């Protein structure tokens, strides 16, 4: 063995190349369909967000932050908007936001049903779990290579790398949330005559909601971090600003891009987290809150004491 000089060789590289060739020769229509579909979704969100006059969009974000989180956070949102405009990176922020929303939505649309399937079937869980583990241990830019090979450069491969990278938490936490629903709740559903889909929609999913929302939050946060990285394959947006800063050794520009990402991350995180707890009252709407601030809300909830 020693004399043979370690020239023992497993041609993994060759195999992969063969595989890639095969996919490119045989699955092109499928790849194109995926690309077109994603492109459509991404452009739709970009167009939607860029359709609003910047000030209006900023105002809407501030309102959402105030309504979902509170007035302090509303103030933070105002500050963030001012900074984003002031640094001149509003447009990049919007592009990033659109890409995050589009890829998160697709990730959730695929990930949540997989999570449900895992929760309802132990075999599916057995198969999916190691795949998820693998996905979560891979460094993020590993996803860029196959995405670029199959889909070239631009927003679509960026979104694909992003949605694959961001999907695992949604899958895991949907599975976990459903499995954590107490036996007696499930039994109650069955004992009153639920079919299995009624059990899912009327009992399991509502009770798993806090966990599923936590998964959604994590997916969105991962999507944001991946979208920034995906600027390396031309996804654009704030990542581009950072990348340009690095390439030109322009510390200021790099910092501005980074700050934009951080601000967006905080906004997305707090707002999506606010959906995470089961609300017993369908929380007072914005109008009611405004009214109660004005001190004119007559029917402040009072809890009747037993007897």
């Amino acid at each position, binding site marked *: 063995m020693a004399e043979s000089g370690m020239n023992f060789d497993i041609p993994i590289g060759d195999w992969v190349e063969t595989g890639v060739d095969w996919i490119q020769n045989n699955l092109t229509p499928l790849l194109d369909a995926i690309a077109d579909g994603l492109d459509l979704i991404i452009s739709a969100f970009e167009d939607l967000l860029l359709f609003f006059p910047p000030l209006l969009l900023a105002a809407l974000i501030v309102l959402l932050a105030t309504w979902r989180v509170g007035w302090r956070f509303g103030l933070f949102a105002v500050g963030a908007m001012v900074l984003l405009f002031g640094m001149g990176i509003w447009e990049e922020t919007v592009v990033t936001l659109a890409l995050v929303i589009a890829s998160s939505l697709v990730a959730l649309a695929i990930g949540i049903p997989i999570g449900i399937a895992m929760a309802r079937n132990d075999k599916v869980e057995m198969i999916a779990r190691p795949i998820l583990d693998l996905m979560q241990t891979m460094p993020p830019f590993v996803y860029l290579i196959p995405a670029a090979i199959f889909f070239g450069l631009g927003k679509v491969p960026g979104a694909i790398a992003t949605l694959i990278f961001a999907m695992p938490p949604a899958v895991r936490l949907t599975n976990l949330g459903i499995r954590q629903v*107490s036996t*007696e709740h499930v*039994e109650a559903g069955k004992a*009153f*005559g639920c079919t299995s889909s009624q059990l899912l929609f*009327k009992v399991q999913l509502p009770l798993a909601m806090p966990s599923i929302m936590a998964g959604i939050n994590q997916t969105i946060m991962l999507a944001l971090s991946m979208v920034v990285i995906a600027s390396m394959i031309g996804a654009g947006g704030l990542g581009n600003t950072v990348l340009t800063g690095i390439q030109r050794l322009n510390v200021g520009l790099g910092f501005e891009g980074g700050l934009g990402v951080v601000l967006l991350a905080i906004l997305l995180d707090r707002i999506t987290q606010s959906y995470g707890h089961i609300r*017993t009252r369908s929380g007072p709407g914005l109008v009611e809150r405004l009214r109660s601030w004005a001190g004119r809300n007559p029917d402040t909830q009072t809890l*009747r004491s037993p007897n």
Partner: protein
Amino acid sequence: MSDTPDKLVIEDLYKIFGPAPDEAMTLLDQGLDKTEIFRRTRTTVGVQKANFSIREGEVFVVMGLSGSGKSTLVRMINRLIEPTRGRIFLDGVDITAMSKDELIAMRRHQMSMVFQSFALLPHKTVAENAAFGLDVAGVDGQQQREQAITALATVGLEPYADSYPDELSGGMRQRVGLARALATEAPILLMDEAFSALDPLIRTEMQDELVSLQDKKPHTIVFISHDLDEAIRIGDRIAIMEGGSVVQIGTPEEIVTCPANDYVRSFFYGVDVSKVFNAGDIASNRALIVFERTGVNVRAALAQLQDRGRALGVVTDRENRYRGMVSVNTLAAAAKGDGAHWDQAFIPDVEPAPAQMDLSEVLSRVATTEYPIPVVDDQGKYRGIIDKTILLQTLDKTT
């Protein structure tokens, strides 16, 4: 009671949990016990060889220590747990042979369930929770609401219809659980330790409420409990489970007076027997002479009492309804008057006790009066009397 029809008949029912149910069944047939079978096969005997019937309209309590198979047994009745062997008949129909759809229909219309942890949906209002079974069954919204509100009114929670479960106390939450079960108007209620999570005061309150609910609108109730006081309070009959087997079935009195074995006896170690029995259970109708008012006059009654050397007699009407108690002295006094009216012969201040009265209450009455206490049923019919001797005998027998 015994001539009411059987609602549920359980025949040779087994549940084996774990990897080797067939092997376990063979070992069971060879007479091995639960512990030995688990040691040999890692398989748990949940319920074995259960055979009994539950009558329409009765509260059937299943009692036993933790792990004795109570929950498994009750869950086989609505097939939340599939029986390993045996059959269950509901109104003569074999539940174990039902298809999926038939099973769902049965759960929607024939049986509902109340859980120890309440198992309410936190994101739904009290009324929506109460309407859950109706919603699942596809009842339309308006009617759902009406039926839910009616059920909530039955448990006294109507004012809270639009609150959320987490705004209610434990006792109130379980009332919602009960209302949810009542709302579907299913004739059978399965209640697995329904009151065990409540604190003692609320628990007794709920027990009393269940009993009064039964009086108004009887359901066939299978009630799981590990508490003998509870079982006695609400149960028409009690089944005692040990290690997956039903070791005794009987009325509370039967269980307390003739426990089948030491396991059963251990349950009422320290139980207050005066709560087990009520006045009707121990009243004796042999102790006094009974006169039917229309057939005998006062003078004849006096003569009879004196003939037999008795001091007291009871007077009833033609329908056997209690009228009054007489003594030699009062009869003699009344006989002196010319009218010789029965009413004048009744001993004043002797109040009949209702048959349902707790012995503890009877005890205090007996202690404060020199006469025995006549016992009447809810139609006023004479059941017998209780005196100090009878009472002491009863208390003595059971301690």
